[in-house]
């Protein structure tokens, strides 16, 4: 038998590949099914949001922040509002902070539901996606009642939130949580502990804690590697110190610490914790105004600051430089997906092509957040 001759091939994946979570492109160097390397090519969704910030002023930039990450826009809203408040020394009323926590935690649930569903779809199971989206739809309805939008919320303002909770909303929200909590177990029974899912995800592309920190992975991706770090707990902002919740971390129970299964399970477990926070927040919410007094022509004194918000895709850093005028001098947002994309090239070496899709899904990469 003559020996087979093989050669390296260059394949193009994307930018319109259905499972790349937005418009992403990979240049894959491969010999057969095993990749030599996958080189990410980003920028297809670059909308120059940071440059726009320099032209539209502090209040005017709020709707644009929704577009930084449209899957969890509440967090980008909050990050921008918190950066401005820190620069301008603005006090947020307590009810306003509670509204923020409630809105962001619901958004985290919605975002994680999408991630869990997409994980199913990316490895070829359509049903979990539909189940997850069914539950996500109800959150969208709740948030729509809150702020009138289902995706790009523009709910927060510098100094608080735009609108108070509508009458009767609290009861609806609690009823939804009663509905969701048993369903999380259903997801586990249907999908997470399914033999196919575990075999497909376990031991795929593990990330060591040192690597995760060096590549600046954040949020669930970092915690899946066993680093116990949650901005809500460790650099507490807003009213998070008033709530009791745990920070789940990866333990390598499916074979390797920080593998795709660990990263996937982070989302399921965080949903349980979000639900816990929401119950406490909905119970404890005080009365009072939701929006502090902020002048229309907001001019923070010259200075700079960085604030960090625990978004659904992890620690989001807003760096804002003010020169004392009504337009920010420079705005930069460091997002979780940007960091996560940076590690894909390294992890892809020696991975199967089909596992690249698993890797992207487990890192929960969202394209607009990379490109901004």
């Amino acid at each position, binding site marked *: 038998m003559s020996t087979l001759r093989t050669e390296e091939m260059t394949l193009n994946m994307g930018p319109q590949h259905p499972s790349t979570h937005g418009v992403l492109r990979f240049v894959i160097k491969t010999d057969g099914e095993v990749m030599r390397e996958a080189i990410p090519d*980003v*920028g297809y969704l*670059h909308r*120059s949001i*940071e*440059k726009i910030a320099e032209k539209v002023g502090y209040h005017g930039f709020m709707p644009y922040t929704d577009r930084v990450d449209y899957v969890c826009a509440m967090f980008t809203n909050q990050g921008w509002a918190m950066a401005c408040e*820190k*620069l301008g020394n603005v006090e947020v009323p307590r009810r306003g902070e509670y509204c923020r926590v409630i809105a962001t935690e619901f958004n985290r649930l919605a975002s994680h539901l999408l991630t869990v569903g997409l994980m199913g779809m990316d490895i070829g199971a359509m049903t979990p996606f539909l189940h997850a989206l069914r539950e996500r739809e109800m959150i969208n309805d709740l948030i729509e009642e809150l702020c009138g939008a289902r995706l790009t919320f523009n709910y927060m303002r510098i100094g608080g939130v735009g609108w108070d909770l509508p009458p009767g909303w609290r009861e609806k929200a609690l009823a939804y949580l009663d509905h969701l909590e048993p369903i999380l177990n259903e997801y586990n029974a249907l999908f997470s502990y399914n033999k196919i899912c575990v075999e497909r995800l376990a031991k795929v592309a593990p990330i060591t804690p040192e*690597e995760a*920190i*060096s*590549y*600046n992975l954040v949020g669930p991706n970092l915690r899946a590697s066993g*680093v116990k*770090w949650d901005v809500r707990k*460790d*650099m507490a902002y807003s009213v998070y110190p008033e709530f009791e919740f745990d920070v789940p971390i990866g333990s390598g129970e499916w074979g390797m610490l920080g593998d795709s299964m660990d990263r996937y399970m982070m989302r399921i477990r965080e949903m349980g914790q979000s639900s816990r926070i929401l119950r406490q927040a909905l119970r404890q919410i005080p009365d009072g105004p939701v929006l502090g007094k902020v002048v229309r022509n907001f001019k923070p004194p010259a*200075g*700079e*600051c*960085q604030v*960090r918000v625990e978004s659904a895709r992890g*620690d989001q*850093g807003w*760096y804002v*430089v003010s020169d004392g005028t009504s337009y920010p*001098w*420079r705005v*930069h947002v*460091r997002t979780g997906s*940007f*960091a996560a*994309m*940076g*590690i894909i090239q*390294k992890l892809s070496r020696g991975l199967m092509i089909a596992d690249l899709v698993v890797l992207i899904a487990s890192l929960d990469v969202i394209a607009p957040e990379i*490109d901004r």
Partner: protein
Amino acid sequence: MEPLQIYERIKQRFPDKVLEIVDRKPDPFAVLAADAIGEIARCLRDDGEFAMDCLSNETGVDHKDRIEVVYHLFSYRHRHGCVLKVKLPRENPVVATVEEIWRAANWMEREIFDLLGVNFEGHSDMRRILMPEDWPGYPLRKDFVEPLEYHGISTVRESPIIRLDQKKK
């Protein structure tokens, strides 16, 4: 440690490399000599006293007379962070890369190169990241003027409202 304490400690070790410590609210920062960033960064990461194992953010700011590269460092072990800056001339800004020290710098430096035109010496993959390879100029510079077209594709659009107005006439 508080950021100001960290800057003082760095100054004790590298007396002539820390040019300035600016104690300004909300975030104080230290300005370093541009040729010392690699050396100081390595010390900050490896010394157990600082243990800055994470480069949480690296970005650039155009100040019209100079370009600043800003490093936000963070230590997961000690839970403290600091802000370092280097000032570079606007004409041909070059600074050493910190990619070898923190892997995250690879992409962040590519972004700074792409949008502000700072060259990072020793970087393994200095390509544009967000803009097309042949894009003219650096968009986040304050004097950047967007070209009117890119490969025959117009980048401007007449306002539809003006068009309606002209139709009426």
